[in-house]
């Protein structure tokens, strides 16, 4: 009896774990314009249209997809508990129908050995396209595993580089530095809309950058925020709120709340607080901390990425603390990556020929950088409508 029950429980656990790797529900995201407007160096680029291979950015690849075999595509990330990853997985799943592919999302949950081992395992199961949503530390090893397995792959939010810093594979990522700067610029341009009677004493202005330095894709937003803040508020005080200090528990709204609470209360000399959360969930924590510390009249919170902001807005948030978010389109991201995989699997393009205008100088592979758009209570509905229009 015990053995039977044990087997049943084990089976339940396996089923539950597989269920976790499944699809997720619709998540808000993007601006439909296939922007991606800067190069890694920050140089402006024209809005890309169809390339020489005819593979568009920001809109679904046209063609007779139904007339061919169904491809199998997998999104391999570290965790699906991040809103961003969940949104990517969700949109990639939705694109399976128009682009005729079967989709699975899989999360390593910090088991990096499993991540590498599962690349050939998925390839053996017939998966032809891989979206690698993994940190820099595993990027090269993952690339080698994919090359060895002979599959098409694209890196999500990570640049795969060689030891000399040259980009050696295609990727779609956020314009991390620029988006950080956009968020701070917005605060500079709009603080008067919220603090109508205030004059800012530069020395008594503080900006908390809620970061998680152990994840390079997030940490890359810090220089954009810090530099822009130093430029716009030269006397202001920058607080590096690094949630990595709280360990794994730091990567949550609760973590953002704990660290913001500490920084607010340990620096009562600061008269006006700006908070830029490099991930949207942490903005919720910083907002609640401001409410709980009774400093709502002197705190403005914005975030990079907007899912949490959209959730607050759709939940009728009426406060004036969490006021805006730099929305980076997960839909645009997912469309670019899905197009890339379908085009390279079908032979319409190769990693070397697709989107050459996005190659680094002297490089052979594109590095798409998706730029964010600031959204507020007044503009988020338009943003959602545009995003919805991107998908069939």
């Amino acid at each position, binding site marked *: 009896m*015990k053995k039977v*029950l*044990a087997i049943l*429980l084990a089976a*339940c*656990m396996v089923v*539950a*774990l597989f*269920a*976790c790797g*499944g699809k*997720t*529900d619709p*998540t808000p995201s993007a601006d439909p314009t296939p922007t991606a407007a800067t190069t890694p160096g920050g140089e402006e680029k024209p809005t890309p249209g169809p390339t020489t291979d005819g593979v568009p950015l920001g809109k679904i690849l046209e063609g007779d997809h139904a007339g061919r075999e169904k491809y199998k595509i997998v999104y391999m990330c570290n*965790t*699906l*508990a*991040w*809103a961003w*990853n*969940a949104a990517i*997985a*969700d949109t990639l799943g939705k694109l399976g129908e128009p682009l005729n592919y079967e989709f699975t999302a899989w999360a390593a949950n910090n088991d990096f050995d499993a991540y590498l081992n599962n690349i050939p395992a998925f390839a053996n199961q017939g998966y032809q396209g891989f979206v690698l949503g993994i940190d820099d530390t595993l990027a090269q090893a993952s690339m080698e595993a994919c090359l060895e397995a002979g599959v098409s792959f694209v890196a999500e939010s990570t640049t795969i580089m060689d030891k000399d810093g040259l980009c050696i594979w295609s990727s779609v990522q956020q314009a991390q530095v620029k988006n950080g700067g956009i968020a701070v610029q917005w605060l500079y341009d709009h603080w008067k809309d919220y603090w109508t009677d205030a004059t800012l004493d530069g020395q008594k202005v503080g900006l908390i950058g809620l970061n998680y*330095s152990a994840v390079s894709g997030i940490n890359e937003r810090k220089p954009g925020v810090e530099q822009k803040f130093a430029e716009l508020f030269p006397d202001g005080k920058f607080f*590096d709120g*690094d949630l*990595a*200090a*709280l*360990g*794994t*528990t730091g*990567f*949550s*709204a*609760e973590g953002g*709340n*704990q660290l913001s*609470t*500490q*920084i*607010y*209360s*340990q*620096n*009562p000399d600061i008269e006006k607080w700006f908070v830029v959360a490099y991930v949207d*969930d942490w903005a*919720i924590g910083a907002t*609640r*901390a401001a*409410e*709980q*510390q*009774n400093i709502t009249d002197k705190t403005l919170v914005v975030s990079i990425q907007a899912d*949490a902001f959209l*959730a*607050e807005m*759709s*939940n*009728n948030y009426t406060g004036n603390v969490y006021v805006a978010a730099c929305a980076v389109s997960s839909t645009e991201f997912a469309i670019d990556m899905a197009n890339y995989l379908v085009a390279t699997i079908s032979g319409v393009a190769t990693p070397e020929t697709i989107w050459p205008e996005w190659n680094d100088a002297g490089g052979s592979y594109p590095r798409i950088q998706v730029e964010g758009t600031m959204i507020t209570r007044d503009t988020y509905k338009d943003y959602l409508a545009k995003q919805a229009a991107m998908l069939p």
Partner: protein
Amino acid sequence: MTAQKTSKFFRSKSFALIAIIIVMIIAFTLGNKNYISAGNISGFMTNISTAGLLAVGMVCLLISGNVDLAAGTEACMAGIFVATILGSGMPWPVALIITILFGAAMGLFNAFLVNVLGFMGFIATIGMSSVYKGLALVVSNGINVSISNQGFYPLGAYSIQMGKFALPLPFIYTVVLFVIYGLILKYTKFGRSIYLIGGNRNAARLAGVSIKKVSTILYINCGAIAAFCGAVSTAKMNSAGPQAISGTEMDSIAGAVLGGVSFMGGSGGLGGAFIGLFLISAFKNGLTAISLPTYWQTVAQGGILLIALVVDYFGERSRVSALKAEAAQAA
């Protein structure tokens, strides 16, 4: 008698930890005078509450020789659960009670794995932790679940204002539970049976204590408190995230063990656990106050645990020596 008690206190684990805490507070205050400001103390009290609430159920389990490594994910799951049922329009007091019952059910399932199927608590609850984490993701779709019921927010966010100082409600829950469970452990038959089964299972069995029954009650209790913790945290954030609280149980366990609760069971108490937890949380808070670089903060957090353990080790040695000397004198 009083002199004896005083001498015993000075030789106790708690005294060593309190001494470390005092030195630490002085040092951090020298680094940043706002470390002992009303605002920071209030914020500290809010922050310690999550690990503190989890510690209450965990300490009882540890003393009995059991452990629930799923407590953090149970709290997380309960947070998602309460946010979801509140979304259906249910009044928050009803939702809170149902959530606590849901937590008790999670605890009951853990107890089933340990007491009926005979799995080790350590392994069984690691497995369940993964299941709850996965279920939290499935239910939430990997994104935060926001709460529109504004009546629920004060449960985690309300503070009693006393001049400049605000006493946060979650801290009051924590202290009240620590006191109630401390009294149960110390002064009731059930409390003594927890120590007995943790200290010597065979002796407990021979004394007529139902080990399975006590263990089941403790797992249910731990699950219910974890669910309450999850609900309070969700109220505080006005939203529930699929990553919230997970991992906090390790802080609770570290604080408890530092405060004298044996991982093998049979010894320790909630008072010591609170002091241990206080030390860890106050230290983390202080590191932010003095703006120590992040990665050094991680090193320092491990360092303070080691220092406390070393101080405790020498304290324990001196206690054993004193006991041996007393025994020799008596002989």
